[in-house]
């Protein structure tokens, strides 16, 4: 008999305060390692305060740790927020499907992230950067409401070091600081200004629903992307992550098991239940 709900313990190696209310937690698993793919997620918990669902935000090829980013808001995240390096976190996973890198190989890639939605994008982005030679031109477009709301600020420069890689960072109008030197404008607006075409290019889009909605519109209608070449993730509320507890149904899919990664084409066929 096996208990599929039993977590493993992971030790917190490092905590990065990304913004006022978001942190990135880097972990190593006690007595072992985990194998995951970009796009997959896990159930993380400070035991006693309940589990939360987060996508991995690190590249699985960087073996020294695995990480997730979270915003402190509910009971479980408040629990995790109180932890320090050296403390133990419980973890189950990885669960769900993943970005299909075999479809991305040899193609140009554009990664579009908004706010904390950049977390799963970062995982697949860094995975592709780690295997840089396998892919064509890489464009990263990351936006947040304000400079203070941007995650991963310290690693933008790392991404820029790679060959044939453009990194565009933007904040919503009014969210800039006096010394801000990057772009100002909403993600879909900036996206349309980029020299991108739908041919031979795969787009990965994650962020708040409103951003996804308009970014998809720009990609499909103005930039000629095929719906099958746009990949995004759904973020439904989950509990078990195992296709049992029943709360992440959208149409006939369980987001936790059939997803969370879907193409825009697949999403189009789903009812408006997310």
């Amino acid at each position, binding site marked *: 008999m096996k208990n599929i709900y039993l977590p493993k313990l992971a030790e917190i190696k490092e905590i990065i305060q990304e913004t006022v209310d978001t942190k990135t937690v880097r972990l190593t698993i006690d007595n072992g390692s985990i194998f995951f793919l970009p796009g997959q997620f896990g159930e993380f918990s400070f035991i006693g305060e*309940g589990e939360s669902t987060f996508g991995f935000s690190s590249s699985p090829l960087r073996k020294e740790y695995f990480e997730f980013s979270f915003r402190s808001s*509910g*009971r479980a995240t*408040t629990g995790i927020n109180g932890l320090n390096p050296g403390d133990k976190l419980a973890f189950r996973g990885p669960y769900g499907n993943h970005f299909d890198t075999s479809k991305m190989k040899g193609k140009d890639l554009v990664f579009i992230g908004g706010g904390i939605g950049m977390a799963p994008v970062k995982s697949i982005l860094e995975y592709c950067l780690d295997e840089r030679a396998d892919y064509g031109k890489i464009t990263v477009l990351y936006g947040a409401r304000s400079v203070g709301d941007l995650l991963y600020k310290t690693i933008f420069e790392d991404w820029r070091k790679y060959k044939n890689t453009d990194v565009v960072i933007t904040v919503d109008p009014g969210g800039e600081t006096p010394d801000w030197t990057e772009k100002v404008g909403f993600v879909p607006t900036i996206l349309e200004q980029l020299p991108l075409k739908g041919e031979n290019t795969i787009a990965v889009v994650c962020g708040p629903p409103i951003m996804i909605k308009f970014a998809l519109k720009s990609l499909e209608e103005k930039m000629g992307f095929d719906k099958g070449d746009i990949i995004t993730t759904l973020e439904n509320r989950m509990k078990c992550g195992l296709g049992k507890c029943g709360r992440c149904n959208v149409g006939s899919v369980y987001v936790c098991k059939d997803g969370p990664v879907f193409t825009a084409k697949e999403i189009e066929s789903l009812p408006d239940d997310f």
Partner: protein
Amino acid sequence: MANIDEKLQKIARDLLESKEVSLIIGYTGGSHPQRMRPVFITKPEDVGRLSFNRHSVQDLAVFLKKQEVKKFGRIGIVVKGCDEKALNVLMQEYQVSRENIKIIGVECNGVIRQDLADKGETDLSENTVYDKCLMCGEHTPILHDYLIECADPQISMSGDIKPFAKIEELDSMSSEEKDVFWEKEFDKCIKCYACRQACPLCYCSRCIVEKNVPQWIDTNFGKIGNAQWNLIRAYHLAGRCIGCGECERACPVNIPLMLINGKMARSIHDLFGYKSGLDVDAKPVFGVFSESDFNDFIK
């Protein structure tokens, strides 16, 4: 009976045609002849579905807390005397405003218990109605814009049946005995929270059981979790419960919830001389204090 339905339908048609309301909440025939169910009428041509009889058990005031219903703005609602008391409390507590509501009062001499009706009971008597009907002091709704007289005769009371006799029985028990009694009753609880959902006065947008930073109420079905839930609900209804009995009727595991709520209502009356739902202009009993309040009631 037909007479009642015709009157109801005429009132509803007039209200909808004159656009005084955009929705009428009333009763219509249900799954079988001894069941009635709520119906929502928005078009004058549909008023023929409205009906009322001794099986109209639901307290329709419960729907006024639903966002989907609130959207209709001005609403006409069919109420019995007991149900109308819920409207009064909702108005006292600023949940419903008098201008937005047209009260179609129906005089009522009792409704037949659902469990008996489901077995075919059609006779209105002291043996077939809810305890609340035996104690009813508001056969005629206190507030109403329209009033439809009752078709049923008053129930004759033999004196053999004492409504809520169990409350007195419980009063005579020791604390330990009460503890045993309630533990056994709460043990049945399956935490479906149907009591809350069926209650016209449980309108919090986020119930205390759903607040988890911190977690106030245990979520489990054990002794502690069950007692916490049932007791906190009793407290939140103390001085507010109008005794419609919908929680007890809804409870799928038959916990005698009206014993708790009835007991609380009695204590409030004994201590403060206050009965919930009778006076729409009264201040809620736990919403006021006066210097002359005695302070030994909280011990």
